[in-house]
């Protein structure tokens, strides 16, 4: 098993005729993702890498549906419209690749998704991949690289950095550890499916035996994962690395932001909190594979 995406789910690509949309349609199709349609307004009838293009998501849904997933490659200013269009057509999961999506747009997408019982990953995400089954977004870049770098297995990977998502998974693979599903949750402060949501999904996935998490300073995603462990809602072993120890913390912690987060967001705070609840927090990124191998041996 895997979470969020498998080889059967029917996928539409919004913005399929653009620079990134076209390139990543090739990646997804060649990897084995069940991409059944693409959408670009006004381009109905075109074919991109064997994928038929429609004017609207609803039209694609009528002809090739039922659509379950949409991967969005649309300029940031139009992402909100695209996501709302996908949800209106009944899509249950939108993967929002572009970055620089205005935060009030993200809040509106979140509200509509919640009302429809739908979910989104991103914005500003490289996407996700269930090795050996399907890829959404641009993880791996090319199908042959994605096959080479990511091997099926029992570890779930969740990361706040796109490049690092691939890096961790590749280094795990070199150490003989395959992955169930690999997710880049997105680099922005407000994302559709943050770490706590991912680990809850991985908790329910029978094939996932442990989770590797790449955290960063800012927001409270890692602390909330610790809360879930404490409450017994996430029970699988967690191997975590928090980036930004030496880097200047910057000004992203606005004073007002700290009130709701309760002083959360610092490197020390995250590491301490995760260690308190028994997570394996490594100080050196390069220790992740070794520690994960050790953890799996003891299971």
């Amino acid at each position, binding site marked *: 098993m895997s979470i969020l995406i498998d080889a059967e789910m029917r996928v539409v690509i919004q913005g399929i005729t653009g*620079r990134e949309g076209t390139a990543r349609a090739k990646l997804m199709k060649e990897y084995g993702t069940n991409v059944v349609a693409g959408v670009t307004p006004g381009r109905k009838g075109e074919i991109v890498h064997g994928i038929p293009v429609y004017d609207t998501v609803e039209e694609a849904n009528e002809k090739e549906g039922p659509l379950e997933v949409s991967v969005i490659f649309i*300029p*940031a*200013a139009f992402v909100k419209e695209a996501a709302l269009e996908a949800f209106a057509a009944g899509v249950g999961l939108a993967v929002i690749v572009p*970055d*620089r*999506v*205005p*935060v*009030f747009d*993200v*809040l*509106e997408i*979140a*509200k509509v998704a919640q009302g429809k019982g739908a979910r989104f990953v991103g914005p500003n995400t490289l996407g996700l991949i269930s090795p050996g089954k399907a890829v959404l977004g*641009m*993880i791996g*870049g090319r199908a042959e*690289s994605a096959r080479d*770098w990511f091997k099926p297995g029992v570890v779930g990977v969740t*990361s*706040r*950095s*796109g*490049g*690092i*998502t*691939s*890096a961790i*998974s*590749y280094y795990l693979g070199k150490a003989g550890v395959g992955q169930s599903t690999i997710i880049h949750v997105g*680099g922005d*402060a*407000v*994302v559709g499916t*943050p770490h706590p949501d991912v680990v809850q999904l991985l908790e329910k996935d029978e094939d996932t035996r442990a989770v590797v998490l*790449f955290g*960063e300073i800012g927001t*409270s995603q890692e602390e*909330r994962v610790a809360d879930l462990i404490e409450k017994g809602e996430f029970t699988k072993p967690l191997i975590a690395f928090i*980036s*930004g*120890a*030496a*880097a*200047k913390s*910057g*000004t*992203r912690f*606005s*004073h*007002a*932001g*700290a*009130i*709701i987060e309760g*002083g959360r967001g610092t490197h020390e705070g995250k590491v301490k909190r995760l260690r308190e609840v028994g997570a394996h927090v490594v100080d*050196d*990124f*390069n220790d992740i594979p070794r520690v994960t191998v050790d953890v799996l041996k003891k299971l």
Partner: protein
Amino acid sequence: MAKLYEYQGKGLLKEGGIPIPRGAIAKTAEEAGKIARDIGGPVAIKAQAWVTGRAEAGGVRFARDPAEAGKVAGQILGMDIKGFTVREVLVEEKLDIEGEFYVGMIIDDIAKLPALIFSSVGGTGIEEIVRKYPTKVVTFPIDTTAGLRGFEAREMLRKLEIRGDLQKGLSDLLVKFYRVAKKNEARSAEINPLVVTKGGKIVAADSHIVIDDYAVFRHPELGIEIAREFDRPATPLEKAAYQVEATDHRGTFYFFQMERNIKPRSGYIGFHGAGGGGSMMSMDALLTQGFKIANYCDTSGNPSASKVYRAAKIILSQENIDGYFASGSGVASQEQFHSARGLVKAFREEDLSIPAVIRIGGNSEELAMEILHAYTKDLRGKVEAYGRDTSAVFCAQRLWELVEQWDYRQKGPARKIRERPAPSSYRFDTLTGTLHIRHERCDTCAEKPCTSSCAAGILKFDAGRPILSIPPEEAKRGRCTECLACELACEFHGNKAIFIDLPIPGLDDAMRMGA
């Protein structure tokens, strides 16, 4: 996040129907005196800076009359507050304060909703208020599409036992405040303190509004020069960098100067990351190794070679950096030869004189490393490239060894590696530059590697000379992807006829002003 000055924020509040003190902005002591005279009576003089703790630093003071106002303003103007040089002061009527409150809006990333915060205690920072008076703070999640309703605002106030006319006035203000924050797409907004005067008037005595960087494009009226999270005005180099980012949508480019006026041999490195997480990890590796970082730079999201080239040129224009370090996640999805070519073009034009370690793992890393090694051998500096199986920590160590051994004195002046194009060249415009070909050289070129190196396939031969095979407008619109392959192929395997001119507006000015 794009921070607004207090006076800009107050302008938005006023526009939204929220009373602010009478006053105006002054750039000189004389102007301040004149404004004080117009106001009549005691005034407050407030340094305009994007930092907290202005009052503690002496940036907020009072004056009884115009003469004193001019004198105080003269002292505040030019002051340095936490690295921010004060250029403007706000001169306002001094309020007769009866009570102070706090009003704020933030984006709650957990609930994915805007949240309004109100406290019946104001004046100090909200963190301190929450710590000292937790029962005097209420927060309220706002429905993103419906906005804040009057009854919701009254309910917030009722919880703090605020009744009567004050409740009415404050609830009206809260509704207006949220409208201002939403309309301008604030990432956070604060009025602290919100003052009730002895005369019973509610006035916004201060304002901190931060606009969502990603929404700045929808608000040209705000006049935000750089949509970035800076605590100080942008440096000339940062302004030049931001222009590159704003005019080239392919991938992202973030540049932030962490140090200026670097002394020779002081261990500063020009840093060039790729992707937020990988960049941060790579910076950690540099710092742990004992280096200092001159700048933070991140080109990612599949940037064009030309964008990486411009980033490298900007990084290299910082004086006295001891080394160049490029490192991302190590396993990049995008084709890495684009970044390699961008770096090589910049290194060649500058005749790189310092050691550079480039960790460029990911798709096509073998070709990327080959480009970086083969095409930099004749430069003064040394370039070492590594792929996905080499850690950032190792690369930082390697740079340390190179810097330790490096002789920074005997490298000689930069040679002109490549001549500028002749005016008579064949040329066509690309998305962000111009491609020049000295056709007379093509006539004696045996290899002619140019057209075959063009991945976009937009060059063809005409009587043995490469020309565009598509209309020039299409090349300009982006069919020429500025991959820089033809220029490097021509230089090393052809007859040195091709030069791609990629201007960086503002870079020369920035360097004159001391990058």
